């Protein structure tokens, strides 16, 4: 079994009742202290005013968690290659485009069309931090966190340099919400660096690790980006652990924290 090794240098987090890593880590350790309140996305200070006006919620939430993780890692954001992953991209924008295209005159806003690309969070981030480093944007339905982690770990191991991973999902409004019901906004960012504290391997034989706490498990199972929660709980506990992360059917990730 080949595995990839890396360290986690910084963490950003935004979700129901979770506002950043420093305040979330104690709640992840002691879930009974956690309260399920809707996610609040603060305005991302990193974005210039014009971009902040144009950007949708998935861009804003992605940039907020990215900034948290980069600050925690103490690295220069412009130096980091990036991996962004999301199941649904920018749902409100997609709904508005579909409505406009169903109307007789089909008047599409050019800004909405530009923002419809799945790599909008990555594009806005690299503009904001003035970075020409490589960036990719992935989607893998419910396995989007796992796909992003695999890509980021491979990039980190290949380049032997830190990589920023950002995974974020935002629910669709009606009527698409009925077709793809995500429960709330969830964003997680990890700065991966060369090292040996974490090892990751493809692993098809074990089901994904769930959260023991029913409230966290409800979040984990209802938002693709929140498939990160068992790993985040293990990181908050800070003791050796093995976590299985959801991948495509029959092929997940085995992550070992040493």
């Amino acid at each position, binding site marked *: 079994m*080949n595995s*990839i090794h890396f360290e986690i240098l910084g963490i950003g987090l935004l979700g129901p009742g979770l506002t950043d890593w420093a305040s979330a880590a104690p709640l992840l350790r002691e879930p009974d202290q956690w309260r399920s309140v809707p996610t609040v996305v603060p305005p991302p200070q990193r974005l210039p005013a014009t971009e902040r006006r144009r950007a949708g919620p998935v861009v804003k939430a992605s940039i907020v968690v990215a900034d948290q993780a980069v600050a925690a890692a103490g690295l220069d954001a412009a*130096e980091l*290659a990036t991996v962004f992953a999301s199941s*649904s*991209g920018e749902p409100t924008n*997609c709904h508005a*485009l*579909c*409505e406009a*295209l*169903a109307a007789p005159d*089909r*008047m*599409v806003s*050019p800004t*909405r*069309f*530009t923002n*419809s*690309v*799945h*790599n*909008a969070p990555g*594009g*806005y981030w*690299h*503009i904001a931090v*003035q*970075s*020409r*480093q*490589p*960036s*990719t*944007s*992935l*989607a*893998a*339905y419910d*396995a*989007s966190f796992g*796909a992003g982690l695999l*890509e980021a770990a*491979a990039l980190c*191991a*290949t*380049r*032997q*340099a830190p990589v920023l991973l950002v995974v974020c999902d935002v629910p669709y409004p009606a*009527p698409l919400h*009925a*077709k*793809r019901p995500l429960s709330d906004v969830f964003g997680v960012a990890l700065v991966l660096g060369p090292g040996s504290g974490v090892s990751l391997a*493809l692993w*098809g034989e074990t089901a994904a690790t769930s959260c023991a706490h029913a409230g966290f498990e409800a979040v984990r199972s209802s938002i693709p980006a929140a498939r990160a929660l068992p790993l985040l709980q293990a990181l908050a506990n800070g003791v050796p652990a093995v976590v299985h992360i959801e*991948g*495509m059917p*029959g*092929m997940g990730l085995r992550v070992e924290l040493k």
Partner: protein
Amino acid sequence: MNPITPITPLAITQHTLVSALGHGRDATFAALLAGRTGLAPRHFETAAIDSWLGVVEGGEDIAWRDDLAAYDGRNNRLAELALRCDGFAAAVQQAARRWGGHRIGVFLGTSTSSILQTEVAYRHRDPVTGALPDSLHYGETHDTASVARYVRAALGLQGPACVVSTACSSSAKVYASAQRLIALGLIDAAVVGGVDSLCMTTLYGFKALELTSADICRPWDAQRGGLSIGEAAAFALLERDAAEPMGWLLGAGESSDGHHMSSPHPEGAGAVLAMRAALAQAGLQPQQVDYLNLHGTGTPGNDAAEDRAVGAVFGTTLPCSSTKGYTGHTLGAAGGVEASIALLALQHGLAPAGLNLRMQDPALHSHILREPLRQPLKVVASNSFGFGGSNACLVFGAVQ
């Protein structure tokens, strides 16, 4: 950042494509050799936007598997058409017997997936509740990852899979993702490529941005007025080693512009980095490249930025052309389509002419081929750039 070091060349053991030029490699090569476009002034579905389109015929006619019925949508039908060309699916089955299906990844690019299915569903919402019809299978059609899940299931593979969606560089970047995982020993082979299909979002969206032309697209022409949109599916099979490869992936360079969401950096600064990174991975000097397939969309700004970037890396004597005049801009499939064209160029010793070029823009200095170049080619590079400032360059080598 650490300097980029050369990679081990990666064998490409099969490839295929469907586009407006037809189904499979032979139809594509014949059109490239003859200088025949697949573009035509026409409507698509209910869209009448007064432009030339590159439409793939035949997707509606194929029989669909009952067990994958929910995946039935325009994008996955294009994917299925391509899987059936040039023995591609059979080659993947052979690779699966060699490596094991769980050791083969699926990494595909798309920008809009089968959003057409949702666009049509929005015209048929329940008048009282606003609900979408039951016939819409969002996850299997519209969802961005749909085509990777479909292809993985259709081929019976069990390895890792995802979609790369970085607009018009998507299906070039999948080559880099697959190369890394194979080099690290996590997988032994990968199905890569891209699929994008015509939909209202891109037809009306590019029109709203005033990037589509009413004329046929004319990359590098003094009078170029914008792009012509096309659709396509392209696949390649990458394997750790092979007795008889069809070509080699020598390098895959990636970069960002960090400049603007929908306009390239005017000097092509990010594009320069991607081309240089690809050459560094290939361990090649610029003068060792024999032909460059340009991104070349035919919009005034894109071609100008790319021309400067190409000049900075290669100078002005390298034979270049954009093949968007044949296929149209196939968006998330463009990188995969042009990778396949690069492999055809290497195999047949053909650098295709740039189509629809009447008079080269005097401000642009790249050496655009006016006639097909027939000579042995050892190294071919291909550029793909996208919204969000996403840049990729692939370098391919011939089988010696």
